[in-house]
């Protein structure tokens, strides 16, 4: 039997990034993926013949440029196609359509409010500044604020200095972003309801919070840090679906010598004398390694694979306390033709970007209110993309795929029955909501795939269906992610590391956790 330096659990994009960096550093790496396909939630699958669904995650913007560069991903087949604009149809028949062309967007916003058009420029500048401030934090191993470890203190000092160096206005903005609700924050800049609603939507994605919940302004920034070809805040699609990103990373990892096995589920992490020494597979096989790096969430890693008997009780409490609370679902559609929106009929370029059902702040907030009490939103927030318009390879000629991200769909339903009982009704709700804006939608659906939070949990191994492996709330970020005192990719089990979205800086197709963790493993190995 082969012995490996590192076993990476989970072939999602973070696990693969982790493996690629470790392999490049000369480690003998084995990646184990439970499913038959690689990519975790960044996966492309042909659920319906001829149509390639980006089943879960569907847009990319946060993927760290240094990872693209260092792993030379374009050579391994990565191609990001820009996704231009956000189109928000309104019940009144009007719309808001923001595009990457700045002058055009200004004119469009001015149509709703002249003041907002002016503020939009200022806002954009301020957010770019904030993004610059936060960016180095993404690649940093979070310091432990309770320890006197010099490196951690240096990091804290570095953060303090950077903050001090900001202008007064930027400091003010930064503090507000870290603490306020998306709507309160945007209220200071804008008056147009539909604009605020659509912008605030990025603040709630993947959290169990509403647009008026404090702490959501931060996530606004999280979504502003995306960068494609050096341009901030652009979203993109990966040619071939998001799965192609994972495949490119996997290719890079393999080229560097990593071995990747699919359909190989890990059931246990072997812990001996307080240190991880390998894994037990679902089929009973043992594989040993010096280091185990887990890209699955803390619930699976610690409570299922390690076992509480190997962990300090305080840590177990923290892991149990860590909040997942999936709040979103996904509906993937195979379409015979393009949807026709009443607010802007025809197959124009407005369909090439994101289409957002977020007509007003109150609409968004009421959607959240229902979820708070355990119902899925009867009129949900929906973020739609038709990737086949940008990348025709994902659907047969003349046909289309449409990805609908739906919030809120609380993991814990209180309306009787399980998600299995409500799946189709939930799917109908989504279609009915879309039909209010694009009445032809019901006639053009060839196939519909509905993913509830329960399905997301089952299919992708994401506890409670949380797409970010744990909520991106302030008390679960930075040095508190995923557990106080264990934010540095290490765990209480020696030679067991975490490298997934549950670690700093969190979820999205970013890759930063995988890369940061790899650096930590490499550094620890030198000692």
């Amino acid at each position, binding site marked *: 039997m082969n012995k490996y330096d590192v076993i990476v659990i989970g072939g999602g994009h973070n696990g693969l990034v982790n493996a690629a960096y470790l392999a490049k550093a000369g480690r003998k790496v084995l990646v184990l993926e439970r499913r038959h396909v690689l990519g975790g939630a960044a996966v492309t699958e042909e659920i319906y013949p001829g149509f390639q669904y980006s089943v879960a995650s569907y847009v990319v913007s946060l993927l760290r440029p240094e990872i693209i560069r260092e792993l030379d991903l374009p050579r391994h087949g990565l191609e990001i196609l820009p996704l231009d604009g956000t189109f928000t149809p309104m019940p009144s028949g009007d719309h808001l359509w923001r595009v990457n062309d700045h002058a055009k967007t200004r004119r469009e916003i001015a149509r709703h409010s002249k003041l907002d058009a002016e503020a939009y420029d200022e806002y954009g500048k301020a957010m770019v500044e904030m993004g610059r401030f936060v960016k180095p934090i993404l690649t940093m191993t979070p310091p432990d604020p309770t320890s006197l470890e010099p490196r951690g203190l240096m990091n804290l000092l570095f953060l303090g200095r950077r903050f001090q160096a900001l202008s007064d206005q930027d400091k003010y903005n930064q503090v507000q972003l870290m603490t306020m609700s998306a709507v309160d924050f945007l209220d200071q800049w804008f008056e147009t309801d539909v604009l605020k609603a659509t912008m605030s939507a990025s603040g709630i994605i993947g959290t169990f919070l509403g647009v008026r919940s*404090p702490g959501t302004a931060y996530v606004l920034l999280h979504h502003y840090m995306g960068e494609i070809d050096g341009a901030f805040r652009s979203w993109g699609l990966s040619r071939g679906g998001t799965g192609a990103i994972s495949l490119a990373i996997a290719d890079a990892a393999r080229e560097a010598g990593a071995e990747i096995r699919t359909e190989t589920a890990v059931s246990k992490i072997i812990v001996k004398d307080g240190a991880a020494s390998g894994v037990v597979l679902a089929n009973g096989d043992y594989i040993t390694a010096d280091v185990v790096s887990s890209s699955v969430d803390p619930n699976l890693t610690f409570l299922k694979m390690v076992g509480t008997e190997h962990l300090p009780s305080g840590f177990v409490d923290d892991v149990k306390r860590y909040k997942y609370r999936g709040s979103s679902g996904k509906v993937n559609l195979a379409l015979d033709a393009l949807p026709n929106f009443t607010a802007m009929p025809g197959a124009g370029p407005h369909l090439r970007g994101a289409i957002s059902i977020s007509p007003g702040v109150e609409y968004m907030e009421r959607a959240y209110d229902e979820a708070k009490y355990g119902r899925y939103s009867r009129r949900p927030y929906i973020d739609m993309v038709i990737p086949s318009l940008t990348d025709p390879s994902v659907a047969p000629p003349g046909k289309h795929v449409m990805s609908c991200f739906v919030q809120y769909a609380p993991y814990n339903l209180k309306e009787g029955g399980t998600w299995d009982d409500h799946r189709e009704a939930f799917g109908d709700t989504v279609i009915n909501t879309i039909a209010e804006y694009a009445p032809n939608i019901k006639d053009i659906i060839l196939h519909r795939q509905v993913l509830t939070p329960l399905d997301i949990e089952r299919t992708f191994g994401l506890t409670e269906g949380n797409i970010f492996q744990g909520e991106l709330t302030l008390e679960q970020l930075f040095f508190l992610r995923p557990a106080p005192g264990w934010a540095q990719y290490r765990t209480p089990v020696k030679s067991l590391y975490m490298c997934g979205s549950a670690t700093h800086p969190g979820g999205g197709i970013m890759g930063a956790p995988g890369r940061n963790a790899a650096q930590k493993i490499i550094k620890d190995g030198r000692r």
Partner: protein
Amino acid sequence: MSAIIVIGAGHNGMTTAFYLAKAGHKVTMLERRPVVGGCAATEEFALGFRAPLANAVGPLRRSVIRDMGLATRVQFIHPDPRLVALSPDGRALPFSADIGRTAEAIGAFSQNDARRYPEFCETLRRLGVFLSGLFDLTPPSIDAPAAGEMWEMLKVGKRFRALGRTDSFRLLRWGPMAAADLVSEWFETDLLQAAVASRGVFGTAMGPWSAGSGAVLLLNAAIDAAPGGSSVMVKGGPGALALAMAEAARGADVQIRTSAAVSRILVGDGKAAGVVLADGTEIAADAVVSNADPKRTFLGLVDPMDLDPGFLTKIRNYRSRGTVAKVHLALNTVPVFRGVADPADLHGRILVAPGIDYLERSFDAWKYGELPQEPFLDISIPTLSDPSLAPAGKHVMSVHVQFVPYTLAGDRSWSDARQALAATVLATLEKYSPGIGSAIETAQVLSPVDLEQNYSLTGGQIYHGEPSLDQVFTMRPILGWARYRSPIENLFLCGCGTHPGGGITAASGQNAAREIALALKSA
């Protein structure tokens, strides 16, 4: 020695005035209303019935009580239990000062919760002690901390480390958390969860599921760590306390003028130079201290030409949305509550907030400008400890009603909505105290708009601005101006809209006096 004008004779204004006079300055206080005390004033709302805006005081900072000799001037009453939380199933949970006794009462609901309660109290106490140290500080300057401040911050850092790993992480985690999450980590009984979480949302524009309500809970713990909160009463009502503070201030040679509304703060050469009264009288001064809230001070009393537009924008964006209304009931008898056998248990506060979802639904209504169907009530019957507030044998019930919006949806005006609010409150009370309706002689409703008009609280916000994470400590009222100073030289703030804010604690006033004395000395 400087001639100083203090605008507003609320408890913080009087505290600042007292200390500045003690430091040798010539202090004049100007109060718009005919009575001193601001929100602490006790006023007659029906013939022979008197009630204050605030149900309980602070507790007031100890050093203020000592320095102003308040203990000899008024009688503080410490009811026990401090709080009784009512359940719709007819039971009640009393929060006694004695942790063991409270745990025993909790045991009737859940043995697990009873077991955890002492540890929760102890944790809250330790974190509260740490935070109360921060309350005494002037928030440090962010740009260029002086050596003294660095020293203070180092001391804070040392005390943070002394908390130990578990507690320091708790502090970091709990602050940004939702109070609902925080309490559910400790307790399983909805009634207990809500009673504790209600402290994290009282007076704020947050529901228990709002992130950051954990911080408010912690800030309250710094004032009084008991999970049920503080219920210090004053014989004669908080108004008696206000009079005692005025007496102490006068004793220190502060001149207090009531019915003297300030309409404008005079600025000359970028410096505060005095005030103009509503009747046109000008009063010159070397420094002006405003006990009014930040919005009223900078947007209402200062000429916008004297301030930088960026600063004005930030003050406009300072959130000050009222959520509390007040209902005063004149009762012809002492009310009886289901589950409370001994009337002596009603001397503290009485809480109608029986569940987390109950609180959240009430907050939901507020968000949309609607009246809550089932409001969160924080009640006291001050006449139980102090019969002088009502005619013989009769009682006053003082009810804080939350969440009540300042602006009602659909252009509905408050003159129409007052009756509806009273009806909602009475219907809610009936559930817990059947028959109370027939005991009511008169009811007075003070909407958030009334609170704004009567007490000059912008937006009806009882804390002079929401205590949200971005509006506390170095950010109160706004980042860069948390040190009681303002962009106008010799114009200072001393009210609840400055660090540490909170209820009737006099902490802002005392901190402000220290900073102002320093600033005037170095000038």
